[in-house]
């Protein structure tokens, strides 16, 4: 194949992505316009109201924005101390050995459990556990949802990170060992810097997954349209309210739900951008 043709094929795939994302933003925006027109763009974002009584309808996204960010960031926080060690276990310490393969398979299996089963497990197992530990009175809430979410995103973070850790060239590591570095130091000063960008993007993907998770969260977060102020409070997330209300919504409510979908898009963009800035700062 000629180089030129190849380059064209490469660029056209990029264009396809542009078209798809652009198209989605367009569809979401045109669906949200009625809601923004009615409530005002910034008013909608910062309003904690969600009142569906006909004649008195008022919708706002703040409750859900806070809920989404809280649960997703918490989930990421909970998952890092477990997914990172697993990635190091599989990609470095026991690289190539049977046990790494077994652990890797177990972690990958987690990715295949349907979110409704996570929700059920959380409902029947985790929630009573939290209630009996005295952490929360009725068991639903930000904490429960974040815990289950953390378990759900572990495979994304761990699997991909382990691949990147694996790919660090052996010569670089051997060079460090020959200079007298311990294993821990090799991990710290060779593997992490090199696999770092990959690992970071793996966690960004995991975060994105957490933002968009619907089923498991909606069964455990309590679905109260209030802004949670503590871990044990109930709340609601953007994905959850869309999933819960979409089937029965019409008119202004439907438009508000689509607007929330658009906002989720925007918030994911902002968080991703902030993440990239952090990486840039560190590299300087």
């Amino acid at each position, binding site marked *: *194949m000629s*180089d030129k043709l190849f*380059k064209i094929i*490469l660029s056209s*795939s*990029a264009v*396809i*992505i542009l078209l*798809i*994302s652009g*198209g*989605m933003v367009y*569809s979401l925006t045109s669906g949200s316009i009625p809601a923004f027109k009615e409530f005002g763009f910034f008013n909608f974002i910062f309003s904690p109201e969600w009142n569906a009584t006909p004649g008195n309808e008022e919708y706002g996204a703040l409750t859900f924005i806070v809920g989404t960010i809280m649960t997703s960031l918490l989930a990421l926080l909970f998952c890092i101390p*477990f*997914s990172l*060690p*697993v990635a190091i*276990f599989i990609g470095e*310490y026991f690289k190539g050995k049977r046990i790494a393969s077994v652990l890797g*398979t*177990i*972690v990958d*299996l*987690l*990715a*295949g*459990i*349907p979110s*409704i*089963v996570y929700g*059920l*497990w959380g409902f029947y*197992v985790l929630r009573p556990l939290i209630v009996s530990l005295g952490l929360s009175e009725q068991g639903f809430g930000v904490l429960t949802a974040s815990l289950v979410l953390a378990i759900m995103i*572990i*495979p*994304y973070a761990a*699997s*991909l990170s382990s*691949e990147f850790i694996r790919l*660090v*060239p052996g010569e670089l590591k051997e060079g460090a060992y020959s200079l*007298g570095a*311990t*294993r821990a*130091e090799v991990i710290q000063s060779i593997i992490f810097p090199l*696999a770092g960008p*990959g690992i970071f*993007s793996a966690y*960004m*993907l995991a975060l994105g997954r957490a933002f968009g998770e*619907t089923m498991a969260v909606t069964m455990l977060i309590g679905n109260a349209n209030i802004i949670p102020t503590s871990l044990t409070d109930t709340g609601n997330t953007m994905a959850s309210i*869309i*999933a819960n209300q*979409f089937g029965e919504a019409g008119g202004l409510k439907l438009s508000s739900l689509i607007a929330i*979908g658009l906002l*989720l*898009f925007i918030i*994911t*963009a902002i968080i*991703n951008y902030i993440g990239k800035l952090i990486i840039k700062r560190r590299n300087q």
Partner: protein
Amino acid sequence: MKISRYRNIKNKALYIGVIILSGLTAVPLIAILVKVILKGWRQINFDFFTQTTPTTLDAIYAINAGEIIPGGIANGIIGMLLMVLMACVIAIPIGIICGIYLAENTKSHLASIVRFLTDLLQGIPSIVVGIIIYIWVVIPMKSYSAIAGGVALSIIMLPLIVRSTEETLKMLPTTLKEAGLSLGASYSSVVFRVILPSAFGGIFTGILLAVSRVIGETAPLMLTALGSSAVQWDVTKPASSVSLLIWEFYNDPNLQNMIWSASLFLLMFILILNIFAKRISNKWRI
């Protein structure tokens, strides 16, 4: 050279810490897996794979008689396979090629925009993808269909494949590429015959994760494929999938047992894919 005590302790501590935390991670996983297996294995028999879903009446008779619920999830299995296949055919080529593009064009402006947008796509709740495909595919086709479901799933799969391909390629030593080019091979040959095979592990992981994700998706399929109680080979008609069936079982008071057996099926499917993937990637690893 003697290693200082501090460095020695740090070394051992990290080692032990990693092992303990990895072990702890395995705990909830195994807990969930065990629960699914225990609650689900009884329903699995030959019929499970070949029969269509039982009605609630069948279930009532079975429960009253103390037997397992008859029927199976064949309509879900076939629908799922068809839609995942379509999604793969769409998402894998586009995803890998876009990943190559991004890895080869790290500085370009267009590339950073595309990279950004891909990360955005990852964060969209699957139900929003479903809403959009409903507008783009279902309404013009004037029918719910497996095609619409496949398209929705492919969009969900894309970001994972693109990013994992890109990041894996970026980690490959540039010497590989340079060696190939210096031998006079064309750019595309070097990519297809040298770079991609070395990156196979990472790429396949991304694909595997993407497939695992979409076989568990319900919301987008409700709005695009609708569901079907019969095995449906015609992709322009509504189709079911195992995840959709799980949702139906959830809502039916008599079919609760089927939730677990259907989930067990999904897990076995992922396991088989995993084993298959590891076999292939071991063969291809340079």
